[in-house]
């Protein structure tokens, strides 16, 4: 599986890329210091550069430690059992997000809760459906009816005229 070494390296590369993107975006607005102080791009430019530099530092440090034979770096960042546990939580969560933007947040809430409770938690249908429906109904009443904030809706809500 992934060792901590590679996790450190990948994260540092990602923050390095982030810093460089910011530096690039800031260049458009001028990074100098004129009569009225720093130009609009100056702060983002230097902060972005700092992030990139610090990321390079982390990279160097991590590689250096690896060469020196630092043991914790060879530890598993995520072993099989743990990865499975995270995935069993993360994948339904991502599915929930995808469902939210396609079928609407109420449908997604019900489907997601039914899946996690019935098929992952092993609860009975009655308990599962009750929890899922009550949660969705609570949000519907509190948000749509009381505070008048609409959540994302999909085709199903339109169909039943909500």
């Amino acid at each position, binding site marked *: 599986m992934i060792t901590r070494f590679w*996790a*450190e390296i990948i*994260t540092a590369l990602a*923050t390095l890329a982030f810093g460089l993107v*910011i530096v690039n*975006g*800031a260049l458009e*607005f001028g990074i100098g210091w*004129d*009569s*009225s*102080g*720093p*130009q*609009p*791009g100056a*702060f*983002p430019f230097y*902060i*972005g550069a*700092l*992030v990139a530099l*610090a*990321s390079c*530092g*982390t990279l160097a*440090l991590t590689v250096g430690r690896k060469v020196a034979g630092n043991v914790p770096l060879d530890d598993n*960042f*995520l072993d099989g059992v*743990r990865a499975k*546990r*995270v995935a069993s*939580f*993360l994948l*339904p969560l*991502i599915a*929930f*997000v995808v469902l*939210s*933007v396609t079928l609407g*947040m109420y449908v997604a*809430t019900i489907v*997601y*809760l039914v899946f*996690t*409770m019935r098929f*992952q*938690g092993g*609860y009975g249908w009655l308990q599962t459906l009750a*929890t899922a429906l009550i*949660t969705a109904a609570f*949000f519907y009443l*509190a*948000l749509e009816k009381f*505070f*008048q*904030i*609409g*959540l*994302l809706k999909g085709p199903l809500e339109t169909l039943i005229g909500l």
Partner: protein
Amino acid sequence: MDNVANLMHGFSVALTTHHILLMMAGVLLGVLVGVLPGLGAPNGVSLLLPLTFSMDPVSAIILLTSLYWGALFGGSTTSILFNIPGEPSSVATTFDGHPMAKQGRATEALSFAFLSAGFGALAGVILITLLSGWVAKFALRFSSPEYFAVYFMTFASFIGLGGSSPLKTVVSMGIGFTLASIGMDSVSGNVRLTYDFDVLLAGVSFLIAVIGLFGIGELLLTMEEGLKFEGVAAKVRIRDVVVTAAKLPRYWLALLRSSLIGIWMGITPGGPTAASFMSYAMAKRSSRNPEKFGKGEPEGVISPEAADHAAGSAAMLPMLALGIPGSATAAVMMGGLMIWGLNPGPTLFTDRPDFVWGLIASMYLGNVVAVVVVLATVPLFASILRIPFSIIGPIIVVICFIGAYTAASKEFDIWLALAFGLVGYVFKKLDYPIAPLVLAMVIGDKAEDAFRQSMIFSQGSLKIFWSNPLVATLMSIGLILLLMPLIGTAVRRLRGRRAIRTV
């Protein structure tokens, strides 16, 4: 003593059954919006605003301020129970509050949070009562350089709290700064760093970052550890609330210091969020056991809570007397004042004493009502932790994402919350500190604006930060706060090396 007489008159305005009922309704609604991350106090207040158009201004402001207090309390509740700060200002409460809840001390953490919050709020109101005239004059002396100095002090107090690798702290803080600078730059009137994506026009919302980094990140970690909340076994008794209350006086110094920091940040433009961070930092720095912080130290709950509420209530003064909103919620309330036909300003106190003193009196009553109401809910909230994680986990997920959407009704925010969740998970596993990122996001762009405004004032000369006694004092305190830990570390390192060498 005029003020005390005025306050008595205020009580006669505020102390009616109708108003007490409004306070209770406001607090309960506030707890509800506070518990939902993303919805939050500013949203809650602006949603209730239309209801108040037909009310008389005193009743209206009592309802809205009570909702605000309730929301502040509700925000702390989710911070402690689920590591989701329901309000920006309760981020610092998660640092020690959530560890306490995980250790089965949720009742204690909640009770400490609510009681110290109540204490802080009362300290803030007492200040308003006694020193309103003086404070209003003092706040007028603040301009951009002083604003910058206050933000600088906040950063300085938080840097060097230590723990993580300095390189990673820089990365984390830098990311926070850059995220804060996305969107409209008011000093230049340019739209920055949006890379032509329309969704970035409004910037990256701090609320979304917090929901992802703290809420979802924490859930992923909890799942990976395979831990259930250990609170399951803990019994929830109303007696625990009383026992905790009896322990509170032991922390008198923390309460006092935090209230003062909160009041200071409330009347200067720092605001409640910065106040809670600064108060947490000062508590850790002055503690004899700084290593206990972050692992469930009660003082780490008391300090940010007292400061948060002291700042929240003290911020009402600049709002009424000057028309400067000290927080996002105060900005919405100011809009309300104008719609009700009241103009915030120095003369509001003399033109509409009924309104102003009725409001101040209601702040005393409202906070007492709020503390009683929320303490009564402690057993209820604490027992939520007894629900098995396989049910409560997914429900928290739903709350997080619905909260992310309601913050600004933007689909993009849901994706953003997911991304922040993954970042929060990886950062925590690799020991990147998240607090500097959050702090930089809250006050980074304000600090940048204040700095650049100062440079326009002085036409590019840094001397402006030492141009009058007030700003010079603030900057000096900031520098001392910044350098103290560095000197401390250097000294320790030198000693440490010598020690090793002698061995």
